[in-house]
């Protein structure tokens, strides 16, 4: 289908609006988004084809004069651009009763660039009926795997994103697609109901259709094991993290703390650790929309800054953080392409994209063999950041006990990792030589501003408090 015709039809109006507002503001940019997302879901008794939550269409205007930023979000740029410009300027009244002054900062980056980006996908060669049929057939096979399955759900999400960015010196547009599939089980055995899922993502439908069903047997086996899982005895253990939990650590334990809008607010302890050891010397960590191809890969961010590939930790030393345009201007640093919005209706913040530890040199079997008693932890459930004080809460769906260097059949669930971030990162003693990222999750800023992210990496061996 290619870049949005609607956004294309508003390109000249956006340029005109930038020009009019530019007479009063040093910096004016407009981001337009026209994104179409479809959620196809089949479960035991119902199915649906509906709008996915990434669907949006609208514009946001950003204005700046070296002080407070102004943003105005709207559905369309009407034909009377002058009237719209007047409406926008009139909207930014501040009550005289407000006791607080505004920030000041360096001039915003607006280097000249005109470019179009496109990432190919096979999405448009598939009809809704074909994807629905895949979901139905996959679900039927999954449901038939085991009499303990109460409900098997198969879902397919597609999102086609078109974005247009116009400023005085830049004119960028991008069009890309990402698709994901998920199998979800509600399973009853041992007088216990458990829920678990498997995920697959790609920019091609054919990849997801090929790979997702391969995870079926593992999913059913896991559901069975979880039905017999016991609570973990709280304590400090040697652990091996699977790539999902490695990603959870990269994202929650450390990633939020290097979002540089938190540096501006003095909310991140990491600000004081740039150039210092924060992790074991074998650790390397990156974030970037251009670092790998996953769900958070784009060509330019919502500030019109090209996608980055930022080395955050190199050989255990914190190198730098990631930033959006506004925080970079306040810190006097170059933006890293991490300005992201939940939608055009929401503010841009510094946000992670694809965040991961780089692979190491160890073999996973050697890592497991090195543990006398501990756990291997699997599958992210959720996590919560604490960038100022580096406390951790990362929840894994389950763990498997390791005894005398071997994985046992003893499952524990759920498993909450807690402790102090540098203690955890400095305890990393082995890193496997494989690498996987997964984009099944959403990330919030605090408890809001949800954006899609991926994270992952290799397996890590560390020592951490579990409960």
């Amino acid at each position, binding site marked *: 289908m290619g870049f949005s015709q609607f956004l294309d039809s508003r390109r000249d109006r956006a340029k005109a609006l930038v020009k009019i507002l530019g007479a009063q503001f040093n910096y004016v940019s407009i981001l337009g988004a026209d994104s179409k997302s479809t959620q196809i879901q089949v*479960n035991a*008794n*119902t*199915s*649906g*084809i509906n*709008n996915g939550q990434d*669907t949006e*269409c*609208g514009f946001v205007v950003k204005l700046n004069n070296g002080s*407070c*930023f102004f*943003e*105005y*979000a*709207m*559905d*369309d740029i009407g034909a009377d651009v002058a009237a719209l410009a007047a409406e926008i300027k009139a*909207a930014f*009244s*501040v*009550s005289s*009763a*407000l*006791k*607080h002054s*505004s*920030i000041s900062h360096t001039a915003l980056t607006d280097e000249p660039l005109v470019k179009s980006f496109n990432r190919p996908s096979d999405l448009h060669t598939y009809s*809704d009926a074909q994807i629905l049929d895949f979901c139905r057939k996959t679900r039927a096979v999954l449901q038939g795997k085991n009499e303990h399955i109460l*409900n098997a759900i198969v879902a397919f999400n597609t999102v086609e994103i078109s974005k247009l960015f116009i400023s005085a010196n830049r004119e960028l547009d991008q069009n890309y697609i990402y698709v994901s599939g998920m199998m979800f089980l*509600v399973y*009853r055995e041992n007088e*216990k*109901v*458990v*829920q678990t899922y498997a995920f697959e993502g790609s920019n091609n439908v054919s990849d997801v259709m090929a790979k997702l069903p391969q995870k079926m047997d593992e999913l059913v086996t896991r559901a069975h094991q979880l039905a017999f899982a016991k*609570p973990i005895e*709280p304590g400090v253990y040697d652990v091996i993290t699977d790539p999902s939990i490695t990603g959870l650590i990269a994202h929650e334990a450390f990633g939020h703390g290097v979002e540089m809008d938190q540096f*501006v*607010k*003095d*909310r991140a302890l990491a600000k004081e650790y740039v150039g210092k050891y924060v992790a074991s010397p074998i650790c390397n960590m990156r974030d970037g929309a251009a670092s790998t191809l996953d769900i958070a890969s784009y060509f330019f961010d919502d500030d019109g800054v090209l996608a980055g590939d930022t080395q955050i930790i190199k050989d255990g030393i914190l190198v730098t953080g990631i930033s959006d345009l*506004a925080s970079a201007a*306040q810190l006097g640093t170059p933006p890293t392409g991490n300005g992201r919005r939940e939608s055009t*209706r929401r*503010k841009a913040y510094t946000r992670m994209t694809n965040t991961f530890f780089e692979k190491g040199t160890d073999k996973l079997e050697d890592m497991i063999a090195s543990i006398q008693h501990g756990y291997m932890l699997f599958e992210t459930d*959720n996590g*919560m950041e*604490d960038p*100022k*004080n580096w*406390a951790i*809460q990362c929840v894994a769906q389950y763990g498997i006990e390791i005894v005398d260097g071997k994985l046992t059949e003893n499952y524990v*669930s*759920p498993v*909450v990792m*807690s402790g102090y971030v540098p203690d955890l990162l400095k305890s990393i003693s082995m890193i496997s030589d494989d690498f996987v990222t997964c984009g099944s999750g959403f990330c919030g800023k*605090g408890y809001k501003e949800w954006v899609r992210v991926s994270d992952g990496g290799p397996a890590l061996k560390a020592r951490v*408090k579990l*409960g």
Partner: protein
Amino acid sequence: MINLESMLRTNSQVTDYKINIHEIKSYEMFFVKGKLETLRRTNTCDTCVTVYVSHGEFLGNADFLVYPSTTEEALKDLISKAAERASLIDNKPYSLPAGGPEDCTVDSNFAKLRPEELAAKVANTVFDANSLPNGSLNSVEIFLNQHHETVVNSRGLRKSQTRYDAMVEAIPTYNGSIQSVELYKQYNFSNLDEKALYQEIADIMQAVQARYEAVKPQQKLDCKVILNKKELRELFFSISRNLRYSSVFNHSTVFKKGDDVQKNPTGDLISITMAGALEGNVCSAKFDSDGLSLGTQRIVEDGKALAYFGDNQYGQYLGEKPTGSLRCLHAATGSLSQKALLEGPYLEIIFMSGLQVDFFSDYIGGEVRLAYYHDGQKIIPVTGISVSGSVSDVLSSIRFSETEATQDGYTGPEKAMLTGMKIF
């Protein structure tokens, strides 16, 4: 709207339709270390159209979004495509709610002020509440929203409501000589009560000073645990999620009607009522997205699951009367006085990363960022600990305060006393 409805009526495949229109006007302020960093306004309208297609013994539905920029030609295509999609869906039939016109407003004092005046009042109150030496609010975000929601369907239903909400996100910080520490505060409200807002912020400022002073306990703690309203909200909503029509229909539940939510109870008995609106509750609404008028539904009584609740489709599938999506939860208070709650050694949790409640794994717990440990003689702020336990064991012996509090959709006991939790 009239044009949209007439276009939907003229499509021969469309059996029924529903239109949800959501207009939002917002005024948002973002402060960094007390200075205004960003001022935002939004003026947007989403129109979501759901088409229903009856085919054979089935009913299918599919939805699409319409924007002010959507042309008539594009709209015709969207309707046809949605009808095609709906015809692929083989769901059991159910009916849309019928009704006539109704225009409601959820009470709020927001309408009395211009948004910039309201925002200034909120901002000034928040910053004034920080009177702590060495205390600061490093980040404050204020969101004021006016929502106008309309539901129209092909059965004559035509309801609209205006409601307001506000959210303050504040990051209280204490800058001491040894370190700087912070906590997180999100406060949602739909009526401006400056005194209440001031107190919420003042309390979290006191808490952040306590976090600075907090120490990791040197010895293992073994005592009762006291939860406050934020964690109780999570606990009670976790129970209610098990009793939604959709959860029951999809087997994603651990409770059925008549089951004991509390097994062999020795503490206070749990009673929960779901409601469309509760006084002072930010989640209050007059009707849900299907246009169903929202009343109340008692779902747990004296520790037993009494009834389910939920939306139109799944209610009909279960042969129950749809209650609508009730977003407010009222839980009965208990028998514990403040004095009884605070007797003997206890750990009162003030701030957690997030209480994890998992009925499937029978787990309750999480990382504690600030708690007050009372050793029987003095109160010590503590940090760096976690708690965990069996949620079914905890519910059996839980005791609730006789005082009530409200937090984001929850109105119920202000505090609860838990026994049998591991502190580590």
